[in-house]
């Protein structure tokens, strides 16, 4: 039985198990129909031209894991940003783990989607926001159909949350293969601010496929910083969809650090509905072996006087493959837009591949839109300069790579996180540099 058939037949069971009066019941049944019609995307679709899901869809994924998947804090502590205090929403095999989590309802709601969906007091918010910005493509619909758990974050007006929120999805590997579909909803009210760190982590070498959807709503003057740490094992694959809906004067930044995983696909979709919005999409990708990362971005400029900045850096070793498909869409009403898109890549191995498609679609005349894309190598002269001053080859290379990625690192506003990412980069390129960049 193919995965698609399996999903379709389990949906019937899943629906029976849920209570019928769920406010999103109709959404679910529409979504499963969309998925049934469209199926999994194939390479024939333009958006999936360079990424094939065939190899990861072969596994026999279990959809509803057993409930007793307890893990000990000491085993997973290193995956948390433990140096500082944070709110934590932790899921183990898709199920909320209250022991590892630290939620709140004081100034803001940092809790679970399942409780938001079931409690009456959240009903208006769910009705206003849930699935309102997500698009009806097949994988997002698949997630919507099975949506029951994930993070629910709602920051009221004028609240600046005191500490960052960590959303961590662990996969224990108690099943031979598991499909996880977390669904996050983030609503940031007027003039509110929040920092979110998201991480998917597998704890064994059993196959994991995560099909995650996050919806972010940034109201007027809201400020959202979203960090995605993707440093999973080579048995884990991730398809991540992030949809951001921005009102006027809001700033939404998504930083993606892709260092691991078997296949990672990041779909970032930004919709600017008010004037003076700023969207920032940054990414550092460092890959080796047979890893594959695909960044697919869309910034849709609907209103005038907005800005968007995309900056993606990639370093590719061994037989790894990097894909960057960035799209800037400017509606004809959206005059005076400043949109910038940059994609720089370094190939280290002969077998590594880069496929880039920086795309502009512009219907307004008074705009400043540009994109740049480069593929190159580390500067031989710079290498020589450092070697002649007694810096080892490995270290010299690492320094250059750091310098290459530094622009994006500078954007990380949590110092501890920045240090953590630095460490990850150092690990990834196999050096130990005794300083913080």
């Amino acid at each position, binding site marked *: 039985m193919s995965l698609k058939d399996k999903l379709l037949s389990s949906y019937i069971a899943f629906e029976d198990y849920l209570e019928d009066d769920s406010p999103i019941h109709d959404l679910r049944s529409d979504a499963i129909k969309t998925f049934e019609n469209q199926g999994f995307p194939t390479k024939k679709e333009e958006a999936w031209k360079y990424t094939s899901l065939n190899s990861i869809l072969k596994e026999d994924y279990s959809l509803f894991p057993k409930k007793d998947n307890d893990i000990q804090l000491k085993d997973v502590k290193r995956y948390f940003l433990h140096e500082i205090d944070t709110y934590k929403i932790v899921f183990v095999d898709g199920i909320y783990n209250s022991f590892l989590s630290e939620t709140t309802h004081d100034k803001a709601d940092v809790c679970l989607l399942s409780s938001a969906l079931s409690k009456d007091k959240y009903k208006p918010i769910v009705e206003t926001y849930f699935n309102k910005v997500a698009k009806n493509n097949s994988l997002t619909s698949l997630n919507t159909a099975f949506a029951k758990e994930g993070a629910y974050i709602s920051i009221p007006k004028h609240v600046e949350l005191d500490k960052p929120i960590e959303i961590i999805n662990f996969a224990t590997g108690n099943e031979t293969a598991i499909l996880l579909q977390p669904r996050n909803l983030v609503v940031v009210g007027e003039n509110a601010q929040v920092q979110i760190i998201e991480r998917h982590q597998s704890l064994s070498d059993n196959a994991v496929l995560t099909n995650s959807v996050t919806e972010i709503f940034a109201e007027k003057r809201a400020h959202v910083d979203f960090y995605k740490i993707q440093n999973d094992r080579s048995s884990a694959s991730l398809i991540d969809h992030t949809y951001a809906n921005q009102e006027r004067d809001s700033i939404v930044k998504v930083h993606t650090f892709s260092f691991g995983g078997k296949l990672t696909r990041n779909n970032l979709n930004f919709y600017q509905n008010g004037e003076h919005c700023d969207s920032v999409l940054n990414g550092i990708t460092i890959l080796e072996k047979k890893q594959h990362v695909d960044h697919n971005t869309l910034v849709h400029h609907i209103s005038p006087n907005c800005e968007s900045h995309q900056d993606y850096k990639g370093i590719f070793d061994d037989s790894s493959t990097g894909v960057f498909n960035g799209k800037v869409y400017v509606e004809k009403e959206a005059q005076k837009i400043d949109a910038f898109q940059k994609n720089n890549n370094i*190939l280290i*191995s002969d077998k*590594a*591949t*880069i496929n880039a498609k*920086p795309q502009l679609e512009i*219907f307004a*005349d008074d*705009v400043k839109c540009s994109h740049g894309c480069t593929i190159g190598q580390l500067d031989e002269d710079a290498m020589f300069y450092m070697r002649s001053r007694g810096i080892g080859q490995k270290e010299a290379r690492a320094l250059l790579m750091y310098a290459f990625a530094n622009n994006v690192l500078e954007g990380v506003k949590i110092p501890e996180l920045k240090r953590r990412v630095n460490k990850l980069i150092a690990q990834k390129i196999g050096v130990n540099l005794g300083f913080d960049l």
Partner: protein
Amino acid sequence: MSKYTEDDLKKELETKEYEYGFYTDIESDTFPVGLNEDIVRAISLKKEEPQWMTDWRIEAFRAWQQMEEPEWANVTYDKPDFQNISYYSAPNNKAKYDSIDDVDPELLETFNKLGISLDEQKKLAGVAVDIVMDSVSVATTFKDTLAKKGIIFCSISEAIREHSDLVKKYLGSVVPQKDNFYAALNSAVFSDGSFCYIPKGVRCPMELSTYFRINQAGTGQFERTLVIADEGSYVSYLEGCTAPSRDENQLHAAVVELIALDDSEIKYSTVQNWFPGNKEGKGGVFNFVTKRGICEKNAKISWTQVETGSAVTWKYPSCVLKGDNSIGEFYSIAVTNNFQQADTGTKMIHLGKNTRSTIISKGISAGKSQNSYRGLVKINSRADNARNFSQCDSLLMGNSCGAHTFPYIEAHNKTAQVEHEATTSKIGEDQIFYCNQRGIDTEKAIALIVNGFSKEVLNKLPMEFAVEAQKLLEISLEGSVG
């Protein structure tokens, strides 16, 4: 060689009758509408082609039947009804024009604006004109001069008959019959086109030029061009198009194949000014062209194009850089106004070592038009030290038009260096104001700025074309500023 002087030309003009008029007076030998194997055979028979050519066409036709019309391009149009087109039309009487008065005045006006009449065109020394009218080559000048150098420049049908070994060897070698929908259609039904062969070590002394025109209502034009530059040779080839107004859409599906053997260089320049449809977007030519060249060792192919016409353009002149140290270049200006749609760009396929390519594309959209750049730069894993630089700039006029950029970059080699840059901008009000202050009216100011914007590409055109192209830009953008 003895230079062909103006006196020679005058003499020739006196003795020769004016062979190529514009339209209507010529009685055409037109095939019934529709397409089937019999029509393909009939075309082949009519052209007195050898059996292998007929088989080749039939093979292409059968492949075409299996294919679907491509829809990926960023254009929308009513698909042509391929059974409602006459696939062959040839003038059976030679046109006899004594004066230019018989010519469509609107067209003449355009020519006047261009500052170029066809007479004058011919007088431009160093330009050999091979007029293709209604699919059959009617006149070829300068043939003798070229023949002395061993250069073959003739219609493709003549080449099939007289140089069949060359044609057989190279036809379809760069654009195979089954390459794409329109290339397959063209392979099956092409009625004429140009053939050019430059022998080893010969530098073609003049710019070779072909003027294509569509004349007969309801006849699609399917040209096939084959240019072969043998080892160490050089040729500069000009292709220009004008088409008189027609109300129904006309289909133009040409195939151009360039073969640059070791150390040779081909420079292929196009000015495309087919009828773009009127201001309401009615009529206009559909231009679905497959152009591709292959570079052997140290060879160079340079495509330069100025696209101002056609209702719908679908065109990607490409270079396959097969040999080591080969070079591919693509310089393009695409102007769209009113309801025109253009989806154009290039493909640079780097296969050999130390291959280099440059892409400069300038898109200008006005009115309600859509202008897309679509390009591919592919560095193969064995193409060490490949280098590419791409730049595509778009200029938008008004907010009813669109500019789109779809660059595909695929690198499989660590020594590759690829750079891509794109910008979108508009003509600044201060720029216009500056010109106005100095007594330059707005329309002229725009022409001035657009010419400046396109200069990098215009500079690449041969002299004769550059002047014409500049004026063409002005005309194309007339009335685009309110």
